[in-house]
């Protein structure tokens, strides 16, 4: 409150003869709004950028100014504006590619903004993502971000991604502000985001603003396109794995637009030709409707629906996926106050039918989310963002049903869980002087577990007991159960999450930045495998599971040089997480109605150094990313004499990669031909190898000691792609381009895992390497009209 008063005071002091210029910036042909466009007033060294909805607002002293509006791949606008009263000014930018034979990229929005206090953020546009060569030619957002410093995965077939040594479930993934619970198709080979439907994305790795919360490691904020409100267009592609089609057009010219996108894999259609009865496919649908009610009000309806279907020999059938529906209302209270109200429904569904054991299994999570966000442009030195967020969750941890009447399985329903999460936040962006800019904020979050049936009660509230004789953890036997009304609050948590960053400009081209953020996470993905699987379920904090709490500190140096041709970002981070759940050895998490009996409370820490060198302009552009880091986890005994996990010692997380190097570049010969390349080198993933063998009950058993003390061999590969546009000057009608690519050019057998087992023929033990992708050539055809 003090903060607000101080701000108001500040505001009154400085409000003398100042006027506000505001509006939206859009792409001329489609009227699609553009995110992150720079609006610069060079004479007074002032400027702003457009927000997620293309809106900007800046308040300046009365006067006549030159304004430059610039955005990657677009022709800049430069004009003079006389500001003698509040004014609305919308800008339309034309795509540079369409007018120029020789492409000169003027301004790259992906390069760091050295003045803004926000650090540890990476932006990628849909075009950059599409340029990156990928396996089987399927452009992929998640694969693209793993080329950035501080981002890695647990292997080629792994779901999700890991940011700064954090787990995959610690990433907040937002698609048009709706939470996505599982970002992978086909066990992680592809991500659920159709690149054609995506406008822009931002990945926050640190210094995360207070408007985001609920996950501790990162925020991946993805925006879908609105659709062309001027004319009808379609684009799509045919690849080896999937095909895409996206149509967009006006509902009412310049006012309303629609966008429908669909994508489906179809390789399974050919399988019967090879006499294979297995099916594996995925599809997703993206929709968006936008309507401009008037200059002050816009409404949006967006949706996503995706499914994976996987069946083997009729004996195994697996379906899972996300659905999201989101209604938003943008309202301008004044030219200084922009607001967005969102109602979001999202769910994750998982079903597994096992005919050979005669049962099926369904689990999922549903949530209803209300968000009200305000952006308040007080002056060119001060910007506020504040808002509130309420989420209601329903968790279905699983339900088992027999599939045939004679099945020996009894129907069984795991107890549903309910929760309510709330947050209030305030973010302040505050330019203190020409050189010093601050951003600080506070988020007050709360989490309430609501009443459920049959909550187990344990003696001394201890659900896990330590057996001192055998030095193992065992499940405690509940001494009773408690049932609650749905309106009861069983357990509540409140957390204050301060966030702060600072940028100090050393000179016109370089700056240093510092940041701190505390975040809390109330949901946990139960997963004790090396990488998450679609079957893993989310569980809320409650009596036996505490919220994860993170503190992260980061410091960075940012420099643009050679006339902004190059940029360099160097960052170092340290983070620690309290209440990271760990599992007792061999814990069975599936269909477990008493998950508290196998969970222990641990902590995690990670630290590292990241370097990103980009070439932003010219025929050759791209980046080099290097990360040196360590990511560890520890679960000590709760009382002296208790063993803990891994004897209570720190151990490497499965995503600890000491060195992680990626180089990605693209070279444009002319407007017909463009070449792209990636090279990756990573320290091998941590693994646990046996230290001995023994025989028990006729079986040969490997004996293990410390956890994750070994590593797989280092991972490296080179990918190449060639884009060919046969008729680059064609701007109307059918336009197309081809992508030829080769993944893993030198066919390295990168180990996805090393399995230790007994060869049944020789009766000797051996180590077997599983490598997923060797050299994979592919071709795809893309079109628009």
């Amino acid at each position: 409150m003090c903060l607000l008063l101080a701000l108001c005071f500040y505001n009154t002091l400085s409000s003398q003869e100042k006027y506000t210029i505001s509006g939206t910036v859009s792409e001329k042909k489609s009227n699609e709004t553009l995110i992150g466009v720079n609006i610069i007033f060079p004479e007074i060294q002032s400027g702003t950028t457009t927000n997620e909805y293309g809106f900007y607002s800046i308040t300046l002293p009365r006067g006549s100014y030159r304004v430059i509006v610039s955005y990657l791949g677009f022709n800049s606008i430069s004009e003079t504006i006389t500001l003698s009263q509040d004014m609305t000014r919308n800008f339309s930018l034309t795509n540079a590619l369409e007018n120029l034979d020789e492409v000169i990229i003027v301004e790259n929005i992906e390069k760091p903004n050295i003045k803004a206090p926000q650090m540890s953020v990476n932006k990628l546009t849909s075009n950059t993502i599409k340029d990156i060569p990928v396996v089987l030619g399927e452009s992929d957002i998640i694969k693209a971000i793993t080329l950035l410093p501080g981002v890695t995965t647990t292997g080629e077939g792994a779901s999700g991604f890991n940011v700064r040594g954090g787990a995959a479930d610690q990433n907040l993934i937002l698609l048009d502000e709706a939470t996505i619970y599982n970002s992978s198709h086909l066990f992680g080979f592809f991500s659920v985001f159709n690149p054609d439907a995506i406008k822009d994305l931002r990945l926050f790795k640190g210094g995360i603003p207070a408007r985001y919360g609920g996950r501790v490691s990162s925020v991946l904020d993805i925006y879908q396109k609105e659709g062309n409100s001027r004319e009808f267009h379609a684009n799509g592609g045919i690849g080896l794995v999937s095909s895409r089609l996206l149509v967009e057009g006006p509902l009412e010219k310049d006012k309303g637009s629609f966008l429908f996108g669909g994508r489906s894999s179809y390789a399974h259609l050919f399988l019967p030709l090879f006499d294979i009865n297995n099916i594996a496919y995925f599809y997703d649908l993206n929709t968006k409707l936008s309507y401009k009610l008037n200059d002050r009000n816009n409404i949006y309806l967006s949706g996503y629906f995706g499914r994976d279907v996987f069946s083997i020999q009729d004996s195994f059938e697996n379906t899972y996926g996300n659905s999201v529906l989101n209604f938003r209302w943008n309202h301008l209270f004044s030219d200084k106050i922009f607001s967005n109200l969102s109602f979001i429904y999202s769910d994750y569904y998982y079903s597994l039918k096992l005919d050979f054991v005669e049962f099926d299994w369904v689990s999922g999570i549903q949530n209803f989310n209300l968000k009200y966000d305000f952006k308040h442009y007080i002056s060119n030195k001060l910007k506020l963002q504040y808002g509130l967020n309420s989420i209601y969750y329903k968790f279905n941890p699983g339900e088992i049903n027999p599939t045939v009447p004679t099945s020996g399985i009894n129907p069984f329903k795991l107890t549903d869980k309910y929760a309510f999460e709330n947050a209030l936040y305030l973010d302040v962006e505050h330019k203190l002087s020409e050189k010093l800019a601050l951003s600080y904020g506070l988020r007050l979050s709360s989490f309430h577990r609501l009443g459920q049936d049959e909550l187990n009660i344990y003696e001394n509230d201890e659900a896990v007991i330590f057996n001192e004789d055998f030095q193992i953890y065992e499940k405690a036997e509940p001494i009773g159960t408690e049932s609650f009304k749905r309106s009861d609050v069983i357990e509540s948590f409140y957390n204050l999450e301060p966030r702060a960053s600072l940028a100090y400009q050393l000179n016109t081209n370089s700056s240093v930045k510092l940041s701190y953020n505390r975040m809390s996470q109330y949901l946990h993905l139960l997963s004790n495998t090396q990488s998450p699987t679609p079957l893993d379920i989310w569980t809320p904090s409650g009596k036996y599971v505490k919220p994860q709490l993170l503190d992260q500190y980061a410091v960075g140096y940012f420099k643009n040089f050679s006339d902004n041709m190059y940029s360099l970002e160097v960052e170092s981070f340290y983070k620690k997480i309290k209440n990271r759940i760990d599992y007792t050895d061999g814990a069975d998490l599936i269909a477990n109605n008493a998950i508290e009996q196998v969970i222990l409370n641990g902590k995690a820490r990670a630290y590292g150094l990241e370097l990103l060198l980009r070439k932003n302009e010219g025929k050759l552009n791209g980046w080099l990313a290097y990360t040196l880091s360590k990511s560890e986890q520890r679960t000590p005994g709760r009382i002296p004499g208790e063993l803990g996990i891994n004897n209570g010692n720190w151990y490497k997380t499965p995503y600890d990669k000491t060195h992680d190097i990626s180089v990605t570049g693209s070279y444009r010969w002319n407007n017909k031909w463009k070449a792209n390349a990636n090279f990756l080198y990573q320290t091998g993933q941590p693994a646990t190898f046996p230290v001995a063998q023994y025989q028990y009950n006729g079986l040969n058993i490997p004996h293990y000691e410390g956890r994750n003390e070994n590593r797989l061999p280092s991972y490296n590969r080179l990918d190449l792609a060639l884009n060919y546009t046969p008729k680059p000057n064609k701007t109307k009608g059918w336009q197309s381009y081809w992508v030829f690519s080769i993944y893993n050019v030198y066919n390295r057998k990168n180990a996805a895992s090393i399995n230790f087992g007994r060869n049944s023929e020789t009766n000797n033990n051996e180590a077997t390497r599983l490598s997923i992708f060797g050299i994979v050539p592919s071709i795809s055809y893309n079109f628009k009209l």
Partner: protein
Amino acid sequence: MKKILFIFCLSMFFMSSCEDVIDVDLKNTAPKLVIDASINWIKGTDGNTQKIRLSLTAPYFDNDIPPATGATVIVTDSNSNSYNFVEDGNSGIYQTENFIPLLNATYNLNINYKNEIYTSTTVLTPVAPIELVEQKNEGGFGGNETEIKAFYTDPANVKNFYLFEFVVLKNNNIALEVYEDKFTDGNQIFGFFSDENIETGDELVIRNSGITERAFNYLFILLQQTDENSGDPFETQPATLRGNCVNQTDPDNFPLGFFRASETDVFTYIIE
């Protein structure tokens, strides 16, 4: 899970994924005593002959598992009977001919090996008989496996745990499965086995043993960590597997293995 992933890779892309045997340097630890003590009272027999096998851990790629010889192995029961298990030469196999099995009785194991005392306790756990066996050909994920279901009826309203052993006699291949009755209490249910290498006429010995909850938990992890599943990114992280035997002399030098006592039903099935 790995199997699924693998088949998926193959069928989806006819792809370049592959498995190959590689050399890995492994750390070795000091040898530990391994106690393979399973008392099986086969239904319809007197159960007087029982064996306990003691061995040592060996470096992972060694071909031989050294026996633990020269130990004193004694089992006592709650009726103050004491059974001395005598070693057969230097084989590490210790045997008695006068064991008296009693359902739900408590048995204590006492081993003296190299002047260290190892102890354990278990309960002889009853089991439901195998009632019938069904065979289905062309099953499994690849469509080329023979599936066997061995049915039994779980006693209602009591927690039961089962160890199924499927032994293919021609090559002595053994497959273990453990089951609990959490979702099947009181029903007729089956133990499941599937193999692509068995043929008509092959003899399959199916053993169903009653085990304690502790044994179930132990075997559950043990099976997760053996052959096919170990090191797989979709399987749980491997860890030191502690059984129910304790080294009383030097607790840090804990033994591996397990002491269990089961009633066992044996069913010999000829593949059709």
